[in-house]
């Protein structure tokens, strides 16, 4: 069985976190989409690296390439045509960046130190599993942070994509023997959800004249 280089995994993982940060903090939606595209490619790279040990992950990597790195960015790119600037979020750039960095540090440190909460740690691949879980949960947390603090509907969709990426990445350590049908189901659903959400958001832009979720206020109570 070929060895996985821990250095490669660590580099890719660090870049995953960096792209998540960029996707959440970039004020230009197209820049955020680009950051997301890079993240999707990194996920494919990570999955392919892990696949050296567990060949069934090659299938997962290929699915991720089609859904995450091609379809979702394409939908996002189309949705941001003519409206590239994000609606100003609740929190200003500086504060938000500090908060996001604090969140990712805490999340990474916590999950890395407590990976045994999630999996039964044994065998030679413990450091890899720890890194994988820590990155997965950090990306998840940043996605959730994006959804909760951004006003722009398209930006919340990007947050949702990050959230899903985090969960999907965790499957590498948590569910390595999962069936292909289940993987295909999980991956397809994200794409369809993103498509439908952006379709509805296009309708919102047409009828409300904005994608600012704070101005969607017809329904209260």
């Amino acid at each position: 069985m070929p060895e996985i280089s821990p250095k490669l995994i660590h580099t890719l993982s660090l870049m995953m976190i960096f792209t998540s940060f960029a996707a959440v903090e970039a004020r230009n939606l197209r820049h955020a989409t680009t950051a997301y595209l890079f993240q999707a490619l990194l996920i494919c790279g990570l999955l392919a690296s892990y696949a050296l040990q567990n060949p069934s992950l090659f299938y997962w990597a290929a699915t991720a390439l089609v859904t995450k790195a091609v379809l979702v960015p394409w939908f996002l790119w189309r949705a941001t045509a003519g409206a590239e600037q994000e609606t100003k979020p609740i929190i200003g750039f500086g504060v938000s960046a500090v908060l996001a960095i604090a969140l990712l540090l805490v999340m990474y440190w916590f999950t890395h130190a407590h990976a045994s909460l999630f999996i039964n740690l044994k065998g030679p691949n413990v450091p890899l599993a720890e890194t994988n879980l820590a990155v997965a949960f950090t990306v998840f947390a940043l996605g959730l942070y994006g959804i909760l603090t951004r006003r722009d509907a398209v930006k919340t969709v990007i947050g949702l994509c990050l959230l899903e990426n985090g969960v999907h990445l965790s499957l590498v350590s948590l569910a390595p023997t999962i069936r292909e049908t289940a993987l295909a189901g999980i991956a397809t659903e994200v794409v369809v959800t993103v498509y439908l959400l952006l379709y509805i958001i296009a309708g919102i832009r047409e009828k409300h004249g904005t994608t600012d979720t704070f101005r969607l206020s017809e329904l209260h109570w």
Partner: protein
Amino acid sequence: MAEGTTSALPVLLVIVPAAVACLIPILGRTWLWSREVLALIGAVGAFAFSVWAAGEVLGGAVLTAFGGQLYMDALSALLVVLVSLVGLLATIYSLRYMKHHAEGGETEAAATERRLSAYYGWLMLFIATMLWACVSNNIIMLYVAVEASTIASGLLVAHYWNRRALEAGYKYLMLLTVGITFSLFGCVLVYTSGANILGGGRGLLVSELRTIAGQFPTTTVALASAFLIVGFGTKAGIAPFHPWLPDAHAEAPTPVSALLSGVMLKVAIYALVRTVSIFYPEHASVATFALALGVFTLVLGDLMALAQDDVKRMLAYSSVSQMGYVLMGFGIGTQLGLYAGLFHLVNHALAKSLLFLAAGAVIYSTGVRSISQLGGLAKRMPVTSFCFFAGALSLAGVPPFNGFQSKLALLTAGALIGSWWAVVLALATSLITVLVLLRAAKSIFWGEASAQISEVREAPAGLCATMAVLAVLCLAIGVYPQGVYRPLKAATVALETVSAPRHQLADRLPSQAVPGGRQFAWKAGDKVCTNRLLHTR
């Protein structure tokens, strides 16, 4: 229990509506009439196969397909029949209701007419995905099916494509997807722990996981149940994860509201209890948490319902509250508690679908949704008003309707384990429910008719017939609860094999309902199991 009879029925009852969903956009484009016909075929087919399969399951079989990937025991059968019954009635109701909006509705007639193909297609897919979730035994595919039902209903919620509907659709898809992602984490954690013990792909099957859940580490149990409760609880409308619910229920076309409230919430709570209850035997605190959350939900939902003027929003908040009652039953965790939860689940599905359809009939005839602007409709819409009152009395827990029976069982179960705080709160909230629903019913159907709705006529026969079926069912179950005793008991036992250690699986419920004794006969039957629970806690 895990090994069953291989059968094509669980596949067929999902495939038929799914296939119809694919055909409608293709054929409906050329022949406009075909979409209604196809939708009817799909709904009738799903219902027929569901009843057939349920008959076999009641006969003692457990149906499986694809090597245990699909699995249908009495609990699945109960849900499947419920989903396909309400699905069929909602489809019949749509035939007339959706035409009307096409003729003079809120948006352009031509655009709405075009979207009808999409409407019926998504409707069939929605029903198919809910049925799939009910028979799915693979824990990851359970998540996939539940999320698929969210996707299938997203555009149904936004169907009218106006400002309110779009806002509701966005919130619906976004909140439910985020919520359900938590449940994926939960499912994956359960899977991992299971795979550690069972090894390989076997860890994916719920029917096998439940036999080994006792060996999971406590921290995993805590994390997994938290994720599962947040995830599936969001979709089941459990407070505080319910904010999507009133918007979606109120803005969706009425037949879809009936489906969302009547059965989609039930499918979600089914997924919740199926997965979380595997931890009950060893971790009683999970059950207690569910009980507390249920009571919180039932109180909050009804208080919010009290403040509503829009009839559909009022019904939506009332759904939140009633889901709290269901969760309370599952949280009590005894045999009678589980029975009461399932019984209330069935009763709420029937009564709330009835109420939504009746509210839809009122909107159909008057074009008004605000309770305060309606009045005096009882003379002009006698069938609708009778049906609305039947549903309202049922949910309020007034005899002789079905809601009385299940609430009585629920309160008895709560009292038997000594959770008096829950019983008192549930009882007090029940009084608020009476106030909320009967006040609305009185205001809509009695009193003075305002000038703008003086020329109102009864809703068409197609609408009245579907409501009448549900009203008769509500009354029949209330008068003769023995009729649903056997399937409910079988479903309770199927769920309870999860929550009780294996050697205690003996029939503790009376094997036959005592005629005339009704719910009161339960007390004696449940004593034993309550004692057992007190001891094991």
